[in-house]
């Protein structure tokens, strides 16, 4: 199939991760391969097969990609200075989910956060009903918090820190 060729609404994106307790994350090259790699993490609801993955039921998929990083140079006498892109960090994703204490995905995130050294492949899949475009990355979870205020449903909040250079785009 091909890349989706339309403007996608934000809610068409879903977040998936490898389901094993101690998974072997995909290698950097395989993060760009849909068939038999990324496809196995994305569930059938988003065009994958889902045999090795589980969905994280998040309220919204946060911004992902890379942060800004630049150096500002100035030359005496010149009207404008110059901005040069420098080494950028991957964007950390702070995720909010409704807290279900028995949810498999959230239990896995809680376990990963307490461990701190588990590398896991995550996938953001945008699905238009026919085609999928997937952003896959390896990351570690930290800052797992439960916000149980009396005025609203309890929330589980955690942050995924992607590992540097370990990302890839693919499509079905």
């Amino acid at each position, binding site marked *: 199939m091909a890349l989706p060729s339309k403007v996608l609404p934000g809610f068409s994106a879903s977040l998936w991760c490898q389901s094993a307790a101690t998974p072997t994350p995909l290698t*950097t*090259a395989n993060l760009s391969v849909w068939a038999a790699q990324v496809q196995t993490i994305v569930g059938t609801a988003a065009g994958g097969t889902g045999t090795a993955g589980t969905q994280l039921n998040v309220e919204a998929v946060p911004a992902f990609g890379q942060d800004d990083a630049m150096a500002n140079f100035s030359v005496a006498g010149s009207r404008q200075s110059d901005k040069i892109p420098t080494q950028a960090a991957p964007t950390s994703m702070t995720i909010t989910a409704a807290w279900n204490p028995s949810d498999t995905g959230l239990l896995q995130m809680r376990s990963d956060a307490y461990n701190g050294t588990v590398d896991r492949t995550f996938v953001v899949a945008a699905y238009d009903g026919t085609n999928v475009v997937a952003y896959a990355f390896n990351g570690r979870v930290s800052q797992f918090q439960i916000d149980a205020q009396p005025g609203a449903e309890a929330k589980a909040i955690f942050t995924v820190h992607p590992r540097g*250079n370990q990302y890839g785009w693919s499509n079905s």
Partner: protein
Amino acid sequence: MTLAAIVEQMIASYGDIQLIAKTAIVDPVEVLTAFEEAKQDTAEKVCLGLLKQFHPVVEPVKIIK
């Protein structure tokens, strides 16, 4: 290092494969041939695609006398 060994190293890497592709010493023609023969949607194709991007085949400039 042979092209096959470089590709194998890239496929197994958890690091910056663009950097490996950029600094590899390869024959652009050999890379292009291997890229065209590689199966679609495989890690090998991804790695050869990066090598092709950083080591393009340069056509010799014709000098008109």
